[in-house]
């Protein structure tokens, strides 16, 4: 019995290819408690996405173990709604693949579509929806199997800046209401600070945990308002320095 809902114990990952061996992740330990929102930031190409693949169980780590309650929900960089399925049908993809969950998932998905304003678009095809709505549909698809833990891999990166700010608020609201445990991978420091309870900063490849920031804000504000908080700037500067991003000359 641990206090953590997700626990990573000394995860390491080494990739083999015909020409070389690449160490992507080195000895990462992390515990995430129920209902917590944790962001992982790090230099690009440091193995953040690989870490999510490992947590999801798609990739087996070379070393270490993971403890968590399955199923987990995984949201990828783009919405990947299937063009030939209607929105409702897309949202039912998870239950559709796990036939026995169909019955209990159907009313839940209808409820989510209703609650998050997609009910009237349920019979539309994805290309008829705006970027923000598609992202919301992708989130409902992720929630359909009622996962306790959600893994988000830069789910906002394909959106333009305006939409993005709104969608981040939107997603935060939904996840907060549904009381999910979330691990978000992003390269956007501001986004990480605005949405999370904790920010984990990784080193360049091979990725290790460099620092963990416990974020303290006045209230549990939605992300957009957090950006006004005086602490926001402070955290941003600290993490920016931590990441030590150089533009190579």
């Amino acid at each position: 019995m641990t206090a953590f809902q997700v626990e990573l114990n000394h995860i390491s990952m080494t990739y083999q290819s015909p020409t070389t061996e690449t160490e992507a992740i080195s000895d990462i330990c992390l515990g995430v408690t129920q209902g917590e929102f944790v962001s992982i930031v790090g230099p690009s190409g440091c193995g953040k996405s690989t870490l999510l693949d490992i947590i999801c169980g798609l990739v087996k780590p070379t070393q270490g173990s993971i403890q968590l309650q399955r199923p987990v929900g995984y949201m990828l960089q783009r919405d990947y709604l299937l063009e030939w399925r209607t929105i409702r049908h897309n949202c039912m993809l998870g239950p559709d693949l796990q036939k026995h969950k169909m019955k209990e998932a159907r009313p839940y998905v209808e409820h989510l579509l209703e609650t998050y304003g997609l009910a009237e678009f349920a019979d539309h095809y994805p290309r008829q929806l705006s970027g923000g709505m598609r992202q919301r549909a992708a989130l409902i698809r992720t929630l359909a199997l009622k996962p306790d833990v959600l893994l988000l891999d830069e789910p906002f990166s394909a959106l333009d800046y305006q939409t993005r700010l709104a969608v981040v608020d939107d997603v935060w609201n939904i996840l907060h209401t549904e009381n999910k445990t979330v691990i978000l991978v992003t390269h956007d420091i501001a986004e990480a600070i605005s949405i999370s309870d904790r920010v984990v900063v990784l080193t360049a490849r091979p990725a290790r945990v460099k620092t963990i920031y416990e974020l303290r804000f006045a209230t549990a504000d939605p992300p957009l308002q957090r950006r006004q908080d005086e602490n926001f700037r402070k955290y941003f500067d600290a993490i920016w320095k931590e990441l030590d991003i150089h533009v190579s000359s």
Partner: protein
Amino acid sequence: MLAVEQSPDRKAYLRKRHLHRVIVLMTQIMLLLAFLLVWELVANARLIDPFITSQPSRMLATILRLHYDGSLYMHVWVTFVETFWGFILGTGGGFLCAVLLWWSRSLNEISEPYLVVLNALPKVALGPLLIVWLGNGSAPIIGMALLISIIVTIISLVSGFQDVDPDKIKLLQSFGASRLQILTKVVLPSSLPTIISTLKVSVGLCLVGVIMGEFLVSKAGLGYLIVYGSQVFKLDLVMVSIVILAAMAAILYFIVSFFEKRLLRWQK
């Protein structure tokens, strides 16, 4: 649908567009009519020898004769049935092989050089073998159609299957999908445009195979009519057969197009 008042610009645009379409269609029809008319007149004036080149009026008489003695439909039917079976076996077999090669990466690597060579080999060279092996009925003709269509079907389907976005497959895996589910839920539906365009190519190739087969060995069919007509110097019969063959090719193509429109509605 709401009746929306159209702006004058919109009306002008639509009228222009419509006019353009009418002009294109009329020109197409006129070109054909002019060609037939010139052919007829030139043959009548004996500028060309209608014994060798035939002429529209003689072709029409030949069609009517074939229509009244019923042999027209018999020959068309024979060629159609052979093409049908060649198409079913060629695309069906090709589809199954493509799924198998998608399923097993090793099998795909192993078969690659064989497929490349078989694709480059002119299949008509195998005709004599087919006759020896399968006899002189419809079997070698269907066999020829199958051989011509199956390799192209396999190659284009496999590359279509492999073009599917790996992240879509990852998405399904995150839901715990099996390999069979990945195939049926993502790979096949997203390859549907490729599958249909392959069918379009394949139906044409099957017809090529059937006619080649009928040239080599046959007692009936449009290919038989063409060879027979040229041997007894009835060029009217050859020309008529070619025209009917062209019509048949067009009809087969439109049948596939019809299914394409129905199956790909989500694209529109």
